[in-house]
């Protein structure tokens, strides 16, 4: 049962082959049995899940079910969930019970999805290996000595090990796509503003975007259909209609022009990953698409620009954690400054403190022009590169990450080496474009991600292209042993 996709489970539920309560209990049992080895979940919400499953079964019996009714999913622990701890992977929010649901959580609940629990993540979504979590690292189900990627590492590992049918993630610099690649699942980062940020703990507000992590592009289309849409509570929510993502899956892709980024296929890319990506691109040619070489000359500056913009926004967003209104508070503060400083230093881990300090420095008096302003100009150059590229092609393709999953601890002491894990994903966030990572052929037994990048609000075409590849191949149907 757990090998099925959402589309297949939905059919089984409608045809009464299984009830949502049975399916939900099955998934909860799997979490109980396997999560000790993965640490993919921070909280398991069994009671809420079973109540939602019963409600879903009533809807199915009444003939009032949609494609997500009764489907057990998990939420990254960055999404506020009413009455349930929302830790964001941090000690700071160890005891934070959210007073409301995030918009994305609310929408998926309205669509009938069942919430199994909250998944582990890098602290405040800052990391590329899920090792910065206060709740311990997540392990990759394909090789538990390696990382699942991050920051949505718990969601990626849970979907890969079939502990849930799908999960939500967030992506500020690659945090959906990179773990999807390293863990062998499908992960979509929509256009900036497509899914509401309301109730999603803020990291870098001009980059953060929620998206689905699933077993297939078809499932991503089903999830996105429920998650996307205008929300007046998010000041940067896109006020435009949501496309028919599922309907577009059937479109033909013959004649589709796929741009291959020449800067992404050269130095720094692992040879095995390069071969897998080439195989996937050849399959697209076989399916009738045309490959066009394109150039993103400024993409190499995306990591440097990101490590100004994201820390600057993080230092501002995380100023709210002051030990006064909510979150961790130190013992016996001697004055207000001591209260702020000790609460924050005890509540935040090393990586979060590093980024707050880089951002504080970049925004401090006298440095604004050299850092933030310069980075926003470089960001414009990167967006212009993409605009020119989309004059030559419909979609852009390349690797999602430069390597397959690395060993736990391999990059833990070298922040800059860790940051370069996102070298192919960050430019997409800086430009605000949608991108998806889908499994390419494995390399030495470990998953590889093919990244497809679309033009603004072109998620339907992106998912259509991903789906056509998945209809023709079984790369997304591989399962890690032992789960």
């Amino acid at each position, binding site marked *: 049962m757990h090998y099925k996709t959402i589309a297949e489970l939905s059919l089984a539920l409608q045809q009464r082959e299984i009830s949502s309560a049975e399916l939900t209990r099955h998934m909860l049992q799997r979490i109980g049995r396997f999560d000790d080895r993965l640490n993919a979940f921070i909280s398991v919400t069994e009671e809420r899940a079973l109540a939602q499953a019963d409600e879903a079964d009533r809807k199915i019996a009444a003939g009032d079910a949609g494609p997500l009714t009764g489907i057990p999913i998990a939420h990254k622990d960055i999404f506020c969930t009413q009455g349930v701890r929302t830790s964001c992977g941090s000690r700071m929010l160890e*005891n934070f019970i959210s*007073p409301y649901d995030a918009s994305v959580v609310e929408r998926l609940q309205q669509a009938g999805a069942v919430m199994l629990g909250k998944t582990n993540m890098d602290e405040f979504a800052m990391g590329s290996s899920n090792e910065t979590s206060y709740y311990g690292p997540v392990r990759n189900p394909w090789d538990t000595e390696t990382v699942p990627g991050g920051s949505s590492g718990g969601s990626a590992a849970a979907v890969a090990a079939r502990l849930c049918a799908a999960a939500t993630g967030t992506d500020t610099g690659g945090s959906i796509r990179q773990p999807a690649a390293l863990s062998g699942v499908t992960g979509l980062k929509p*256009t*900036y*503003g497509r899914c509401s940020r309301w109730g999603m703990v803020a990291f870098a507000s*001009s980059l953060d975007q929620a998206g689905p992590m699933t077993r297939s592009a078809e499932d991503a289309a089903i999830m996105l259909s429920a998650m996307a849409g205008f929300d*007046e509570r998010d*000041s*940067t929510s*896109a*006020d435009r209609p949501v496309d028919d993502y599922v309907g577009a899956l059937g479109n033909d892709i013959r004649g589709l022009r796929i741009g291959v980024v020449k800067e992404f296929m050269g130095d720094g890319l692992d040879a095995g990953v390069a071969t897998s990506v080439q195989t996937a691109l050849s399959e697209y040619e076989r399916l009738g698409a045309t490959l066009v070489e394109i150039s993103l000359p*400024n993409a190499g*500056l995306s990591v*440097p620009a990101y*490590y*100004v913009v994201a820390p600057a926004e993080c230092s501002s967003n995380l*100023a709210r954690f*002051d*030990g*006064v*209104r*909510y*979150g*961790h*508070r130190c013992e016996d503060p*001697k*004055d*207000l*400054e*001591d*209260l702020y*400083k000790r609460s*924050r*230093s005890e509540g935040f881990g090393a990586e979060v*403190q*590093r980024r*707050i*300090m*880089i951002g*504080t*420095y*970049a925004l*401090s008096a006298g440095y604004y022009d050299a*850092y933030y*302003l*310069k*980075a*926003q*100009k*470089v*960001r*414009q*150059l990167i967006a212009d590169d993409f605009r020119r590229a989309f004059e030559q092609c419909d979609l852009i393709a390349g690797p999602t990450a430069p390597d397959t999953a690395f060993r736990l601890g391999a990059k833990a002491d070298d*922040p*800059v080496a860790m*940051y370069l894990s996102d070298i192919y994903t960050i430019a997409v966030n*800086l*430009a*605000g*474009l949608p991108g998806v990572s889908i499994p390419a052929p494995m390399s030495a037994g470990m998953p590889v991600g093919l990244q497809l990048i679309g033009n603004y609000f072109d998620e339907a075409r992106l998912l259509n292209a991903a789906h056509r590849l998945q209809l023709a191949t079984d790369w997304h149907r591989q399962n890690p042993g032992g789960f």
Partner: protein
Amino acid sequence: MSLSSDDVAKIAHLARLDMPSDKAEALGRELSSILDLVAQMDAVDTSGVTPMAHPLEVVQRLRDDAVTEQDNRDRYQAGGPAVENGLYLVPKVIE
């Protein structure tokens, strides 16, 4: 770029982070390595480039000047570390 322990202490204070002096030197090296990465931006000439304000060409939405929020004060304060009579408690700030 090389940040001294004094620089680190100053930034930590601005960010309201506690910085034990024995950690400042190592942190200074880590932050300096990140700033070296950032300095790669200097290789590109950006004179005349308009800095990006938003990835999409949109303007800020306006709404009617009407009260729409509900009063959730009690619910939101329930999670505070020290609350009394609807007030957040902090150490004495005025002598």
